[in-house]
């Protein structure tokens, strides 16, 4: 082979690898943080820590998956944290008097109802998603306080099955984590291979063109908010199962973590772009950052600063990615 051919091959190889890195940057950030974590703390890779970590992120993760669907349509859902609290409270309130399956139903349905109402405002009344879900955020939080009379409620003894579920394992992985994983996989399948995913992505890309193609934009937009509400409620249930109380003050700021996870996962707030797997990685990245900082006992305030910096860093990387795709 001639020298120039070698050079050409070399350049091709370099180009391929950079392309690979740019395309899979979420995954790379994930491994980077994983490696760093493993090195700065011996505790990180222990069974207990990993199990704690995954259990902590499962709740946020569920809300993030819902958030992803909303963000893909070009919207945003600020109400997830409040819905989680409301659902948790409802679960605890009804746990003493009602069959457990009905309790679950009520709690999840309440989340779907609040989400659907946001979706109705956005889809039918063309209200800005930020505003509609901001209103629903305070409404759901208020309802949580009303149902609980402002104080955390203990799960009734009749609901011990919930507690068992919250602390149970299968194949070494906690049940709540399984739920999160299963939902993530379903969401990934929907987004990649199902009409629903195709349509909501298209709506985020160009709503008017989708409408003119004879597709019902309204119902699809409404349903992403409904799903987001449902998943947020599920996330609240998981918290209640884990802690044994339904508290009206959990999930404050959860919407921001969910948005951060989705954005770190490479989704665009303009809509039309995002994958479930990357969101899952985004959730894990955020979780690991928090976890490792706790392990090496960084105080709470600097933690927040560091977290913010890492979010900026991750999103900058993606900007770089979309730029290089463009050229």
């Amino acid at each position: 082979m001639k020298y120039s051919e070698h050079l050409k091959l070399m350049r091709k190889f370099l180009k391929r690898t950079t392309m690979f890195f740019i395309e899979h940057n979420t995954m790379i950030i994930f491994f980077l943080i994983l490696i760093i974590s493993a090195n700065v703390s011996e505790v990180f890779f222990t069974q207990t820590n990993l199990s704690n970590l995954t259990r902590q992120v499962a709740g946020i993760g569920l809300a993030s998956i819902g958030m992803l669907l909303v963000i893909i349509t070009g919207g945003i859902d600020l109400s997830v944290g409040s819905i989680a609290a409301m659902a948790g409270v409802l679960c605890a309130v009804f746990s003493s008097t009602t069959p457990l399956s009905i309790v679950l139903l009520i709690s999840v349905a309440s989340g779907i109802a609040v989400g659907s109402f946001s979706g109705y405002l956005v889809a039918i009344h063309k209200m800005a998603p930020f505003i509609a879900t901001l209103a629903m955020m305070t409404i759901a939080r208020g309802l949580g306080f009303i149902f609980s009379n402002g104080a955390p409620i203990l799960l009734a003894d009749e609901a011990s099955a919930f507690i068992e579920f919250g602390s149970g394992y299968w194949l070494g992985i906690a049940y709540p984590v399984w739920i999160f994983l299963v939902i993530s996989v379903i969401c990934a399948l929907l987004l990649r291979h199902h009409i629903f995913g195709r349509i909501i992505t298209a709506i985020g890309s160009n709503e008017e063109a989708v409408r003119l193609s004879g597709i019902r934009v309204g119902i699809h937009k409404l349903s992403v908010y409904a799903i987001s509400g449902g998943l947020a409620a599920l996330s609240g249930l998981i918290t209640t199962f884990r802690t044994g109380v339904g508290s009206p003050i959990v999930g404050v700021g959860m919407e921001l973590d969910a948005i951060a996870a989705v954005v770190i996962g490479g989704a665009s707030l303009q809509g039309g772009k995002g994958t479930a797997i990357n969101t899952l990685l985004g959730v894990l990245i955020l979780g690991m950052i928090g976890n490792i900082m706790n392990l090496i006992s960084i105080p709470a305030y600097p933690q927040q600063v560091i977290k913010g910096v890492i979010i900026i860093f991750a999103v900058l990387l993606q900007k770089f990615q979309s730029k290089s795709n463009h050229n």
Partner: protein
Amino acid sequence: MDKFKNYCVELLNISKSFGGTRALKKVTLKVKSEEIHALVGENGAGKSTLMKILSGAHQKDSGRILLHGREVSIKNPHQSKALGIGIIYQEFSLVPALSVAENIYLHDLGRESGYIQWRELRMKSKALIQKIGFDINPGEKIHRLSIAEQQIVEIAKALCQPLKVLILDEPSAVLGPKETEKLFQILRELKKEGLAIIYISHHLDEVLRLSDNITVLKDGLSSEALPSGKTNKDDIIQRMLGRSMKQMYPQRTPKIGREVLKVKELSSKNRVHKVSFSVKSGEIVGLSGLVGSGRTETLRAIFGADKKSSGHVFLQDKKISFSSLRKAVKSGLGLVPEDRKQQGVLLNLSIKNNISLTSLDELSHRSGFIKAAEEKENTKALIQKLSIKTKHENLKVEALSGGNQQKVALAKWLTPHVKVLLIDEPTRGVDIGAKTEIYQLLNEMAQTGVALLIVSSEIAELMEICDRILVMYEGKIQAAFEQKDFSEENLLRKAMGQ
């Protein structure tokens, strides 16, 4: 050396690649002051890319740019502007939510005093628009204007500062004959004022009439500039396509059947007044008229994209009150809208996703999961059928040239369940070879029994492919012509309301 100095702008050996696509391969283009230089070539030949390099929207990979003989570096649109280069892009670049005046002076809103002087801004805008011979309210929001009016605002915007070079990328594609004539007048005047004008168009007659010299781009390669006087249409086509074109329009032997679309006294809030007509299966009906005569609005009202205020639409004798566009589409209606970027295609999604959008139900299992292989096959077949120039069906539509985007907008309606297709400007921005293919395609669709209603500002095209032409004027149908009565004069006269 003296002759060399005469050039106002020189692009020398410009190369540019997008990922694996080599859009420009050492392209050279030289334009003098007081010259109108036309740039022609097939869709995807690299015309817009070359101009975007000159305007700073893209960066060249190699090559040099000279302005009055001095090498300049253009790293962003701002620098290009400062050098006196103005451009009207093929795709619109106005801000829809802002007013005409704000858009025109967007670059230096309140630059001097820090706050905006609305009155002055509006007066200046009005004067500017009047200077180029039009009348548009400078306080109107852009999204309320027709596309032609938007184009005029684009032109005014480019002219709001002193220019050396003016680039127009297919400006006439959205203008009617009258507006185009006016535009030519302006360009000739600007030329006299000493500007170097680069004009891109797929209308070769227009190009021959207007320009002094013509450069042909083919597959990213440029040829020597030709003086317009020393060439002709066939010669240019030969250079563009690498082959001659015997027949532009298909031989039509219409197979006209039963009436499928009937419109009765249809009115809508915007510009449609009691429009009645019908279209039979296998028939191609043209809707002619000036810009703003209500053609687009008529199509949109039939389809249900705009609310009707009164009147009825019948599809195969069934009265349809479309409460949703989904019902319209399900019962066999389709619309290829006028504004492809805003309404026709999803720019940041793949060609495949765009094309499948109208037939998702057919391409998926009952569970709603998409039959991937079938979808891919369907897309590939359509890409081939319309000769969409792309490497892969998963590439984003925004990476396609304008003409190929148009083909994608059309392709998504080539499904078996479409019975009536309403098409707004089917060949806007499409090169002459592709135009022929689209005409062929429309003809084939009609042969299979689809009823076609076509809006076009190109009278010649309507006269060649239509079986009947309706002329609109101020929202009403002014006249209807059978094929034997087609003449440009007749059509234009009626279009002006005479």
